[in-house]
């Protein structure tokens, strides 16, 4: 596969080991809180396909449900790929078109307009992501299931996701895997080559491409994040190592500016014990 051939050695993972750890993690984190099932947004991309494959292995395919939530501008190819993934994994998938509920909001006369096309696209994209989130959480209650996250480490570090939209979940098995590592694990789990090879896209409009929008390839981005984050190297050192100065600076800035998306909202301290400051309990408290 061309994508795999381009991955440099520092980003290579032991896929068997990663799979064993993630399957254990999903099974335990779902079962210990009293659930058997997960539900997730099945986009037709590789992230949701991988999360689903791991969950199907951990919980059994009968306990994994994908919700495909196209908007009118979503690519038909994504819909077809979502079906391909569901069939391959033997999981149930349901299509819920979100066009009506998204358009109803923007067509409402009290919703402010926007002259700038870029802002407009961003607002529409965020609205779609948040509508999808509400659908997943609502259905998770009906199915007595947990919402499975599909955000990978690269997009979490970039802030390339919608806060309280696609970033919302109960359990995220992919959050410590860079995009290039998602591809490796997906290949090891025998997910469709077509889905691994196609250009990654947020699919907010037809023909959109992450890499075109960000301006750099995931291989370049992942290598820089690997050294900046995992090895705590300075920007100056990365430049000395031969990385593109502009890209190193741009990624460092994105990392800082998106930190808020990776935190709880700021809570003003007033009392003796304040949530997340000096009221500290594990998430698995009581389970």
């Amino acid at each position: 596969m061309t994508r795999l051939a381009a991955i440099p050695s520092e980003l290579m993972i032991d896929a068997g080991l990663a799979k064993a750890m993630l399957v254990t993690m999903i099974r335990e984190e779902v079962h210990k809180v009293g659930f058997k099932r997960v539900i997730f947004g099945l986009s037709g991309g590789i992230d949701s396909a991988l999360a689903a494959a791991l969950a199907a292995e951990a919980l059994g395919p009968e306990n994994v449900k994908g919700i495909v939530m196209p908007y009118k501008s979503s690519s038909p190819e994504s819909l077809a790929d979502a079906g391909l993934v569901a069939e391959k994994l033997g999981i149930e998938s349901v299509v819920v078109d979100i066009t009506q509920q998204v358009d109803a909001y923007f067509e409402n006369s009290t919703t402010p307009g926007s002259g700038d096309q870029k802002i407009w696209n961003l607002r529409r994209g965020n609205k779609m992501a948040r509508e999808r989130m509400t659908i997943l959480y609502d259905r998770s209650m009906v199915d007595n299931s947990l919402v499975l996250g599909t955000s990978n480490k690269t997009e979490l570090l970039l802030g390339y996701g919608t806060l309280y939209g696609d970033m919302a979940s109960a359990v995220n098995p992919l959050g410590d895997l860079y995009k290039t590592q998602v591809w490796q694990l997906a290949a090891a789990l025998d997910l469709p080559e077509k889905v691994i090879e196609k250009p990654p896209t947020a699919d907010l409009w037809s023909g959109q491409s992450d890499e075109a929008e960000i301006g750099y390839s995931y291989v370049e981005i992942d290598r820089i994040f690997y050294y900046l984050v995992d090895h705590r190297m300075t920007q100056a050192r990365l430049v000395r190592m031969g990385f593109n100065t502009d890209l190193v600076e741009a990624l460092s800035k994105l990392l800082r500016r998106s930190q808020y998306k990776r935190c709880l909202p700021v809570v003003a301290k007033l009392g003796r014990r304040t949530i997340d400051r000096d009221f500290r309990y594990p998430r698995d408290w009581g389970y």
Partner: protein
Amino acid sequence: MIHIRIEQTAPRLGCLAENLKKHCDCIAQATAEGVNLLVFPELSLTGYLLKDLVPEVALSVDGLIAELGKRLDGIQNFETVIGFVEETPGHRFYNSAAFLRWDPQGKLEAVHVHRKIYLPTYGLFDEGRYFSQGRTARTFDSKFLGRCGLLICEDAWHLSVPLLLALDGPNQEGAGTFIVISNSPARGIGGETQGVPESLQTWENLLRTYACLLESMVLYANRGGVEDGLTFSGGSQMVAAGGKLLARADFFSPDTLDYTARLA
């Protein structure tokens, strides 16, 4: 012949009563199966990522003995290592390990309590925030293993603790067996790992080095299971003096590791 067992558990975080019951079930089963010494991992009574739960799950040594005594009857001639949060009368909290013995008459006593000396407070660890630091490393006598040293996780990552235990005791003969208990989360999945997390590979190097350098048997009890996204590596093992691996438990999941040793 002595029968050693390592119980690689996955405790429920912060659920003291449930974990106590699990320990008692394991002890009852082990004695029924002829086990002489049963080793549980670090903080086996409480789980690891306790944070502000530390005071809520703490026991005094006497309290621990009383809790076990209430639940277990008829245990004789048996030794066990249990990891727990120890509270002192002055309300200090330690990450401790108790080496307990039921004598031939069924009386239960604490032979030795080790308080973790090196509290990792870096990276993903924050123990220095919640626990007081142990100050001593002493050897003690096991009826089955002879002179032993007990270390908790990070204690084994600093030369001073194994060195002190290797020089302690009558005639400075030191420990002949080192019991290391831990709660080590698996991390490091780079392409060269060949199925063993990098963190566990480092552990295995350390354990073999001590077994070789100190010419002592090393028993390593790690935990399995998951807490808040941390997957504990398991891989508990017994290493013979000199460094030969005798037995190794499964990775990540609970497991029971048995070894029958012929000791001189």
